[in-house]
């Protein structure tokens, strides 16, 4: 625990530039010591830039059909070829990343915030703990895919439905993580000291307990993000996810599946980008975990 604190507190100091050249050198050295974070962050940045700047990077419309140019292999006009309806694969792959990353980020943020709120309340207030944890256990027992299929069947298929469907099974895990931290921290004498000096409960939660959850939650959020991207993809692949008119990696792969023998590139590139994205986020998360929370890292290693 103490080593974590030292690391965290020394980080800002390392980032403070005394001169442009020396700070660049220092960041370089820091990244050398954390190759996983460096590689993950670099890869993820590239993918992020590609998808965010998709309209600049390609002149094609992702939905523009061209029946005359169906299933064309890569050419100078169509950098990665065209799909079964003559749409540009490069364009669609980049735009598809927007939907997938959108789902990944939204789910990570929503699940973290909701889980944080539930975990804080559950960990601090004994009276509601049992009820809340029972609900969480109940939620955990619902198979995620079934829930998503049910939700998209019952309501209109939209990106929001997909996000909610993925958030629900992720919340209990975050809530439990936060709760376990709260249970540990609330026994700390400095929390007793805060109670004794008349600190209101909300301030104890925010000032004394919440900061301890930041590091593990950051790590958890990266893993949720990676898993949400995958879940979105397979839900879309099964037709229970993102509506087919929105290009997402899952939808692209689902459509390309029928033409794999004729035109493998339609499937290859979205699949490749999906894999690389998840890889980069996981590498980033692994690196952050080792950096921010050595204790959690040991637990996780013991579990897997």
């Amino acid at each position, binding site marked *: 625990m103490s080593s974590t604190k030292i690391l965290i507190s020394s980080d800002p100091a390392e980032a403070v530039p005394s001169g442009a050249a020396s700070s660049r050198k220092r960041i370089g050295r820091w990244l050398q010591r954390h190759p996983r974070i460096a590689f993950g962050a670099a890869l993820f940045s590239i993918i992020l830039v590609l998808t965010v700047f998709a309209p600049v990077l390609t002149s094609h419309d992702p939905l523009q059909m061209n029946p005359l140019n169906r299933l064309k292999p890569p050419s100078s006009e169509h950098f990665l070829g065209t799909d079964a309806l003559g749409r540009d694969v490069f364009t669609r792959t980049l735009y598809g990343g927007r939907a997938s990353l959108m789902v990944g980020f939204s789910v990570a943020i929503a699940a973290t915030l909701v889980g944080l709120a539930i975990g804080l309340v559950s960990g601090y207030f004994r009276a509601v703990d049992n009820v809340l944890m029972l609900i969480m256990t109940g939620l955990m027992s619902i198979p995620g895919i079934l829930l998503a299929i049910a939700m998209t069947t019952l309501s209109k298929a939209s990106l929001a439905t997909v996000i909610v469907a993925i958030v629900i099974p992720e919340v209990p895990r975050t809530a439990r993580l936060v709760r376990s931290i709260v249970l540990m921290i609330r026994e700390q004498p400095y929390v*007793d*000291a805060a109670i004794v000096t008349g600190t209101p409960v909300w301030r104890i939660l925010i000032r004394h307990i919440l900061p301890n959850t930041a590091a593990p939650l950051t790590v958890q959020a990266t893993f949720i993000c990676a898993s949400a991207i995958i879940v979105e993809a397979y839900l879309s692949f099964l037709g229970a996810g993102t509506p087919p008119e929105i290009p997402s990696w899952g939808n692209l792969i689902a459509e390309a599946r029928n033409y794999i023998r004729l035109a493998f590139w339609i499937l290859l590139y979205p699949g490749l980008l999906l894999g690389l994205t998840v890889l980069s986020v996981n590498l980033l998360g692994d690196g952050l975990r080792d950096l921010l929370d050595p204790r959690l890292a040991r637990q996780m290693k013991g579990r897997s």
Partner: protein
Amino acid sequence: MSEALSSPPLLQVDDLIVRYPVKKSLFKARQHVHAVNGVSFHVRRGETLALVGESGCGKTTVGRSIMRLVRPSSGSIRVDGIDIASLSRRELKPYRRKIQMVFQDPYASLNPRMTAGQIIGEPLGNFDIVHGADRENRIIALLEKVGLSRTHLHRYPHEFSGGQRQRLGIARALAVEPSLIVGDEPLSALDVSVQAQIVNLLDHLQQEYGLSYLFIAHDLAVVQQISHRVAVMYLGRIVEIGETADIFRSPIHPYTQALLAAVPLPDPRKRRIIEPLRGEVPSPIAPPSGCAFHPRCALAEDRCRREAPQVQEFRSGHFAACHVMARNNEYAARPSSREHGFARSGKIANS
């Protein structure tokens, strides 16, 4: 002395009981740990009462109950005459200004993410004591009061030594200008030389502000030095209470005698007269019948196994709970007054 007797004591604890349920089980009868099993004592203004005993005897739980970090199962804790044992969190807040606590572990009792200024400022903010620029001045004044300086204002706890951290903890307790400070072994985590400094600081603060201390400790050498009275606890009960000099010169209860005998003597030629304690502290889940100390007591007789001894006054202001010692003491042969350990000493001395 007589002045102190006329006004009610600052803190009056009566028949305090704290039970914890031990693991809830569906098929077993619920068991309880009797951490504190009927403890009564009082602390006067400007007085230091030391609460001593082996670890696990419940002395820390007594301290935590007074701070209401633990909810007492029964009994009363009166502060200036008002019972706080069952007040709600909100009702309790005004009393937090009267009683404060200094913790055992100077490392864990300070939030590592807050600066010294923030730590001391928190109670000031909670009670809206000072605002704006005055607030910083007050914090600096508090720092200086405990022997730190304004240069420490923006430092984090890890930048302080153990002794400095404990000073910071004392400054935090002083911020709300309390009348009583409960010290839960505030010295035991410190080096001996630092202990002496903190003892001097506490002593100085007591003289300056007329503070009372409830000093929970197991180091008898320190206790002898700083406390006016001593209460000895064994397995959730007070077995002896009296003036420090009386307790150390002529302990009554066999347990107190054994505790004192266990203090290392600085003179190698002196020999121990009393045998040191044998055996372990019994389980507080199923405490021994009768006198809880009987399995380890050299003087134990039949009655001790059957019947729990009442606290009786042996000498003026010196109380203990022991059948055997009471029989040999004509002073204690008289039935004990309504409450043990307070308000009687003056009267009896006169009679």
